[in-house]
């Protein structure tokens, strides 16, 4: 089958330079940074804090601080998205087929109790987007990852148009956290140079992704071609990157592999380049590792000297800066660069104005706390169409934790409810699973930290639980159980190709409590950095990957209700369509229910259960999602009734022989999803 080639047909941005991608490039072209004093909230002990701050935004913002930053974030996201849609001339599509337009957003501004998906749903509503939507919760690498996942949605046929990008606004907690970690520069961010430290930024950016066919049919001239993307995990530390840069190298190699390009064909790298000692040194090592000698022959610059570190919007703003520059045959320089630090790139473009460089292919790379790395490859000219054979995805194992106990899913009651109602509640799963636990133990138990520690020690004896919040422990236990269930070991030769894709948009309640307690006790400017570092939906995934040594592709997505299933769908798409992973653990965690469930998916394996089809569609459109899944599986939908609300029950129904095929369907959250499992021998 021919691979879908993805064109970038529109883009839009809001940054410290103001509204519009044009304003962004103008600022860079004129050699000025977007830094100004952070005046939106008091900055405690910081003398004169600078940031890539947004210009004053029109309109009233809510009085409540927490809502205010989130509100501003949504507004700038909507502005950037509208610009992107307009630049791609998509007004009509939105009007006629909004359920075929998807939104994937990297963002980290969120309230303690709500999920990231609420933010995303809000943006989608404002834009009139009704297709599958997802948040990416990996903070600093989120929008780069969002672009990659957006590409996968197109490939999977779940959408015709994808708005992919990110949005973030500065909050007092963000500034305080970076300050407490000693990451802020005393002056202006000077990547790869002196002095050390970063300057925070904010903003929003989106690109519009469409297939080559659609772009041609609409007579839209692509701005560039999205050739490939790569993800990896450092599996190293909560806040510091792997100093060897191996994680960054893996992500870049995966992106180039996905693109079918060699290092010699890369003409420019837009690096993450935050300006901190740890990031910059590791990143250059990673670039050298991935590109070899080529790394020293090409310009490698970071636009954080212009924009600051915009967190969830960093990757997309940097990609947009790269694409805007290319329109003029230029690359952005690394602003504020004076003397190179030891271990700086050979050519960091340490100039004040953009340099002429007409690259054919460029790499944009970003790294995040908790070790998630993402890289995308873009090119000017269209790729030759490649043939690609999708790989079979099988379920090698499953691990389920409920009430902080490993659930024996074989006792699962496989009766399920029909998802004709749009309202698939998690209570169904709870009922199903507590019946399982109750059958085995006589009672279901509530959150019990000792029970959790014991479970984790048994499931993963070499995983260090210290420094893991309950979400991380639950997820690690479920992942370890899934590996054990499939008799899988992450040996040295497998770990670079074994990853974790987590569906989670919530913060760990325990971490939030610790975070707020430290602020109440010691003041905001002395908050507990460990809680700050864990205050991300992707934190449990980072901790689990570190504990189990999973260094392959992975990320964290948030879709709300049923996000475990969505994570499996994204994981299956990734596994089946590219050669960077052999094993992906995928699933979800809910600390409030003391529960986690993980599937071990293997590319081309020979387990008894095959994940034959998957589909993603807009909220409430589970019929469309099921249609996609069934079509991919080559089965008839009538044989799949009733639908299960969780993949646990569906997998077990097939595994136990009660059904030859079963579907797990969710209509909730900001994306509906369907997964079709069948017995491996039944696969046509």
């Amino acid at each position, binding site marked *: 089958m021919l691979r879908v080639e993805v064109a970038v047909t529109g883009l839009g941005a809001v940054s410290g330079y103001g509204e519009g991608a044009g304003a962004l490039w103008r600022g860079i072209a004129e050699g000025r940074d977007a830094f100004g004093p952070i005046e939106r909230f008091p900055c405690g002990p910081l003398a004169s804090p600078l940031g890539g701050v947004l210009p004053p935004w029109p309109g009233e913002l809510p009085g409540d601080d927490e809502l205010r930053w989130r509100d501003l974030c949504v507004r700038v996201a909507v502005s950037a998205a509208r610009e992107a849609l307009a630049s791609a001339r998509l007004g009509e599509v939105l009007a006629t087929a909004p359920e075929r337009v998807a939104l994937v957003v990297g963002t980290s501004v969120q309230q303690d109790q709500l999920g990231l998906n609420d933010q995303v749903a809000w943006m989608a509503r404002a834009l009139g987007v009704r297709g599958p939507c997802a948040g990416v919760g990996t903070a600093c690498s989120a929008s780069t990852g969002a672009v990659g996942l957006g590409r996968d949605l197109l490939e999977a046929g779940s959408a015709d148009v994808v708005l992919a990008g990110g949005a973030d606004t500065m909050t007092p907690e963000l500034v305080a956290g970076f300050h407490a970690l000693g990451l802020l520069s005393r002056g202006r961010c000077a990547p790869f140079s002196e002095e050390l430290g970063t300057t925070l930024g904010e903003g929003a950016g989106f690109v519009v992704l469409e297939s080559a066919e659609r772009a041609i049919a609409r007579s839209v001239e692509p701005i560039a071609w999205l050739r490939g993307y790569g993800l990896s995990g450092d599996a190293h*530390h909560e806040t510091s990157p792997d100093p060897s840069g191996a994680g960054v190298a893996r992500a870049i190699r995966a992106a180039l592999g996905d693109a079918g390009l060699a290092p010699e064909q890369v003409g420019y790298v837009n690096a993450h380049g935050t300006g901190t000692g740890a990031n910059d040194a590791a990143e250059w090592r990673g670039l050298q590792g991935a590109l070899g000698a080529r790394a020293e022959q090409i310009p490698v610059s970071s636009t954080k000297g212009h924009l600051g570190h915009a967190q969830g919007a960093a990757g997309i703003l940097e990609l947009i800066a790269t694409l805007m520059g290319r329109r003029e045959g230029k690359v952005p320089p690394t602003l504020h660069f004076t003397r190179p630090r030891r271990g700086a790139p050979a050519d960091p473009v340490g100039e004040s104005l953009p340099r002429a460089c007409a690259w054919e292919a460029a790499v944009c790379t970003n790294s995040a706390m908790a070790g998630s790395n993402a890289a995308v490859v873009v090119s000017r000219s269209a790729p030759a169409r490649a043939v690609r054979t999708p790989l079979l995805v099988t379920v090698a194992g499953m691990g389920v934790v409920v009430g902080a106990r490993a659930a024996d899913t074989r006792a699962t009651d496989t009766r399920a409810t029909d998802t004709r109602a749009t309202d698939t509640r998690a209570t169904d799963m709870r009922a199903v699973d507590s019946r399982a636990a109750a059958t085995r133990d006589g009672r279901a138990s509530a959150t019990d930290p000792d029970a959790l520690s014991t479970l984790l020690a048994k499931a993963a004896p070499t995983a260090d639980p*210290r*420094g893991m919040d309950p979400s991380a422990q639950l997820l690690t236990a479920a992942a370890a159980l899934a590996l054990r269930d499939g008799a899988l070991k992450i040996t040295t030769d497998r770990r670079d190709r074994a990853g974790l894709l987590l569906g989670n948009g919530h913060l760990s309640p325990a971490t939030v409590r610790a975070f707020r307690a430290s602020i109440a006790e010691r003041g905001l400017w*002395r908050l507990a*950095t460990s809680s700050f570092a864990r205050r991300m939906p992707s934190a449990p995934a980072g901790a689990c990957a570190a504990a189990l040594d999973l260094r392959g592709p992975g990320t964290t997505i948030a879709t709300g209700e049923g996000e475990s299933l969505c994570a499996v769908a994204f994981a299956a798409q990734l596994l089946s369509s590219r050669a960077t992973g052999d094993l992906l653990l995928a699933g979800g965690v809910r600390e409030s229910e003391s529960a986690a469930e993980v599937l071990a998916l293997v590319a081309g394996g020979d387990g008894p259960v095959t994940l034959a089809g998957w589909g993603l569609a807009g909220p409430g459109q589970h019929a469309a999602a099921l249609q996609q899944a069934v079509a991919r599986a080559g089965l008839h939908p009538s044989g799949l009734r009733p639908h299960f609300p969780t993949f646990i029950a569906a997998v077990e129904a097939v595994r136990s022989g009660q059904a030859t095929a079963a579907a797990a369907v969710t209509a909730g959250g900001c994306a509906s999803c369907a997964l079709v499992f069948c017995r491996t021998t039944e696969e046509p």
Partner: protein
Amino acid sequence: MDAALKAHLDRRQALLDQVRALIVKQTGRRLAPADIDPDAPLFVSGLGLDSVDTVELIIALESELGLPLPSDTEAVPALRTVNTIVDAVLARPGGTDRAA
């Protein structure tokens, strides 16, 4: 033993207990304060505290023991072990001298 020696030993024991309790609290380790050897390295080896812990510890030492460690030059030698922290506390102006 004489009074001056006793005073010194008591002072050091009290500070030892206080600093160890502070470390346990700030770093969230599941240790009893007495489990922390007074001369065990705190960072890199020994207890293996990391850069995140350093920040926590410096903040707590200042607020609870009045020990400011404004720069690496002061912090690095002071934070090597519990006893070096106690030395630094005692060396502040107003800290007690050792038993002569």
